[in-house]
């Protein structure tokens, strides 16, 4: 799942050296939770006028070679042509506050907006490496896509020292792959936001609004979605059969794989009786539960009214 424009960077996997058992291995992949991304965007929107970019701390968990970014918070910093300063007290306070709510998340690196990796980036990276030590600090650079010529996207880096005598202001940022990751149970929330965002795109209104729906509405929209997809496939297949369009072998194979699974059931008609029996049984169960639920609700309502009446 690429999180940005395709790049030609080769993701180098450092060779595992058996010598350095004590040194933790460098991370080879990063996953980022939507909350962290959204926080970065929010921070960017709230920056001061004179700030080119904003930076902040990334919190998350890490396994041996994988870093999972779970959340992020903004950190004050200032950059001038001569120096860069990061408000460390603030960083510490925020980290302590976050630890109180979620003690599992530790500092894994830092983010900045814009794709500009300069000397200051190296300095900040050096600082965060001390915070995360002995592990490597990861750096997420997020392109907001507001500057022309810069497509929106997220890139992840780790650093490695450069030169015969490594200096903190010099380092090579090595790109590593980033992907979006969230729990299945959070899926619907992300879908809600996506549909909110997409529904606003065609219109000219600057902000987008939508209300959360009920589960029946969600279901009906999914079914409509499926029906439209079937229609699309059907028109494509008809067009190919009529010779109007060039058939794509890959698409044909995908269609066969997908539809083949469901046609097997139809092949043996004998199974359908048992199928119908199961369906009817299940139908009765569901209706029963539904009846029960409505009964309970009615009783609860009556009971609450009776509590009022008994006083009179």
């Amino acid at each position, binding site marked *: 799942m690429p999180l940005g424009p395709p790049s030609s960077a080769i993701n180098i996997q450092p060779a595992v050296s058996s010598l350095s058992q004590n040194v933790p291995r460098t991370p080879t992949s990063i996953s980022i939770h939507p909350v962290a991304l959204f926080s970065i965007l929010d921070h960017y929107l709230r920056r001061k006028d004179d700030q080119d970019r904003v930076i902040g701390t990334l919190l998350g968990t890490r396994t041996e070679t994988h870093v999972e970014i779970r959340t992020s918070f903004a950190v004050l910093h200032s950059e001038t042509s001569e120096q860069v300063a990061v408000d460390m007290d603030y960083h510490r306070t925020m980290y302590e506050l976050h630890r109180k709510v979620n003690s599992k998340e530790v500092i894994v690196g830092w983010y900045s907006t814009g794709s500009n990796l300069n000397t200051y980036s190296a300095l900040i990276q050096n600082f965060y490496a001390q915070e995360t030590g002995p592990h490597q600090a990861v750096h997420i650079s997020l392109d907001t896509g507001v500057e022309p010529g810069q497509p929106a996207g997220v890139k992840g880096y780790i650093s490695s020292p450069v030169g015969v005598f490594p200096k903190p202001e010099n380092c090579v940022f090595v790109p590593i792959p980033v992907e979006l990751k969230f729990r299945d149970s959070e899926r619907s929330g992300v879908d809600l936001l996506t549909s909110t965002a997409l529904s606003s795109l065609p219109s000219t209104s600057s902000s987008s609004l939508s209300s959360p729906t009920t589960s029946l509405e969600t279901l009906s929209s999914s079914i409509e979605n499926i029906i439209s997809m079937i229609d699309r496939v059907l028109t494509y297949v008809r067009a190919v059969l009529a010779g109007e369009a060039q058939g794509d072998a890959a*698409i044909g194979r995908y269609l066969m794989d997908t539809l083949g699974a469901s046609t097997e059931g139809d092949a043996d008609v004998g199974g359908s009786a048992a199928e119908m029996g199961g369906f009817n049984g299940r139908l009765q169960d569901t209706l029963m539960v539904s009846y029960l639920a409505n009964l309970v609700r009615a009783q609860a309502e009556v009971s609450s009214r009776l509590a009022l009446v008994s006083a009179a």
Partner: protein
Amino acid sequence: MAAALAASLPAPSAAPTPAAPTYEALPSSMSTLIDVEAEIPLRFVQLDGLVVSKILKHACDSNSSSPIGLLLGIDLDGVLEVSNSFALPHHAGDDDDKSAKSVARYQTSMLRSLKEVQGDDSIVGFYQASTLGAFFNQNLIDLQAIHQDKLRHGGVVVVHDVSQTARENASFRAFRLTPAFKDAYKKSSFNTASLASHQLTFSSILEELPLKVHTNPLLSAFLGEFSTVSPNTVLGSASALPPSFSALDLNSGGLTKNLEHIVDALDNYRNEEGNLAYLSRQIARERAKADNYVMKRKEESAARVAQGLAPLPEEDVTRLFKIPPEPSRLESMLLLGQVDAYAKSLAETTSTGLVKMYAATAGSGA
């Protein structure tokens, strides 16, 4: 070098403040929106995308049954814009006083920190995650009652349903206490007479405010970027946010769990009702005793008057008989609300289940 890096920024108070802030005259279109006394009634609550995802994550991560956090934002022209939120730490087993203090400390330092990075720092309410729609509990009511006194517009509570969300329907609802309930709560009288005079049932404790989800244009652009399939990728490798169809999953799981919850809630309710019945029987007994006593004394004094003697002196009956105060019915009302919420979510699950079953058989031509 690190020392140079760590040289912290000047404290925000010491930062050169712009000399004499100039106030621009408000455009006339905005002047109607100035609302110092919070007189414009709230029309709806607007939840930012950031807040939605923060609540989701907190609800999933937290190990407490009902994670709570604070909502930050501003109200403008009848719209309560919630633009940020943060989770409150969960204290298990701590003694109340200590944990309350540490939560308060946490809250103030978090607000101060957010202010430093230009974040919103005014509390507009709180959120709570629940399962299967049963969010009625004493805790929520108490917290909201505190907020209702302190915050502009009384604050709102946004309820997030974890189990609904797991079933492909992110559920967020905004509530606040009804005036009738607030009145009764202030007097802390939840006996039957007060309930009847306020017309309170479980459904009139909270009033729902319409809730809308808002994404700022930058976030919209990002989400749009993620969910579009880039044209030059091969089939199969989709976008960062591939469409999902788990809403069509035939297995409407959690039915048994839901039924169990209903039975549990009903049991709790029965217990509570039993307690109430016991208490009211006791009250009735004591009252009958007192009435008997008064009656006897009256008869006696009437007899004495008939015999030409002085009547018995008046006595304070209330001191002789302790009639217990009428029990609070709040708890039973909340439990009933919980039963109703569980039943409602069960009914909703079954109704979608029915649709899905018919949809599945429609395909097989049966």
